[in-house]
């Protein structure tokens, strides 16, 4: 049971690693507010919002849903750039706090 749970969590964290990198780049871009970039942030956040709860990370799912909502509002012409950035910061912080140490652990094991 614990092995299977670890396998599931490991699979999710491998995915989160890729998504987090892509989100970080969107967030770090000098001008990350083009429709294409915002749409990409929205798509990644949407997927994370749906998957995180299923994999046992509901708080991460909530943070991702907040990003999706902020970007959706921004794409509709309302909202502010800062609101998108703040929600992304919260999500990336959450990813960093909860996932990256484990992701590093998985990577080290894969490299060994």
């Amino acid at each position, binding site marked *: 049971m614990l092995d299977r749970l670890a396998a599931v969590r490991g699979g999710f964290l491998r995915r989160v690693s890729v998504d987090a990198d*892509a989100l970080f780049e969107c967030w770090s871009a000098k001008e990350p507010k083009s429709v294409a970039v915002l749409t990409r942030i929205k798509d990644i956040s949407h997927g994370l919002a*749906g998957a995180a709860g299923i994999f046992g990370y509901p708080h991460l799912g909530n943070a991702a849903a907040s990003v999706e909502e902020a970007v959706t509002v921004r794409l509709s012409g309302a909202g502010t750039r800062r609101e998108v950035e703040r929600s992304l910061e919260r999500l990336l912080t959450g990813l960093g*706090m909860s996932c*990256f140490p484990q992701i590093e652990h998985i990577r080290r094991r894969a490299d060994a």
Partner: protein
Amino acid sequence: MHRYLADRPVQRSRKPPGFALAMLMLVAALGRAEAQRLDGFNVIATPDHAFGSASAERALVAAKRLGATTVAIIPFLWQANLSSPDIRSGNDMSDGALRKAIRQARKLKFSVIVKPHVWVPESWAGAVEPASERSWDTWFSLYRGELERIARISSEEGADALAIGTELVKTTHRAEWTQLIAAARAVFPRTLLYVAHNVEEAEAVPFWPLLDAIGVSLYPPLGADHDKIGRLVVMLAVTERLERLSGRTGKPVVVAEIGLRSAAGAAAKPWESAEERTATADPQLQAEVLADWLAVLDRPAIRGVLIWRWFTDPKAGGAEDTDFTVQGKPAEDVLMCAWTAACRRPHLER
């Protein structure tokens, strides 16, 4: 217990692991943003609701309301038994009916995949295997004729993609596919794919370089109905293998068929039809399994997911129904959530 959110913001100078990979992913992702996803249903016409009818339109509009962007239309071919070389068009969909189906779907702004299936009484396409070299020649010659006919109609009516075959597991090692693909390509100018049966066949198909996309149907055994962790393990393993296959071939993956009956026991044998086993209705199980699949398959390499299935009868399905269709069942909400907006989903049991 992990703490997922913290009060302090991320410093801009702090780069997560995999920075170089992230750059590549971002470039790929932005390019991909313009590529269309193919999410939707395999649509089956029911006797009193032919494609082109007002009722079929109501059913398709209902699918669109869930966020479906794509429909797969299925002309059936037929052969009397597994070793018979005599493959013919079925009588379920005439050429005119196929044209009407594509036109109706396109009028409603769906992307259209035409996906021929081979029907064998009391068996299935994956077991088709002509018994001699002469039979193979005849089978491929007749199959090619049927495919060219379907490809021509699909081209003329503006279908977006054509599957050159579906789950023909015991045929795909044959060299004849190379010429068959060239023949299809000569008639149909847009996306060509083949639909492999599960990831095992997908990994064995030799002709992916000749096609534009990898199609796959996914019906692996998912264990006991209540074993959510067990099925997530299977789903993750399947998805990671598909991602690796996509990476090796450079082709996107379209999950051209996935689903299960809304029936107790369906997770163990997701391919099983209502005709094969009587069972009590369990629409919640169907909804949960599809939610899990959609969450796991939400990866960049997977360019679309087509649910098996959706009927042209707008009143099909419902809470007591035990067929694969998701119509009138909780799975509709799951799909709408996945395809249109954020939603909360069941948590992993600890």
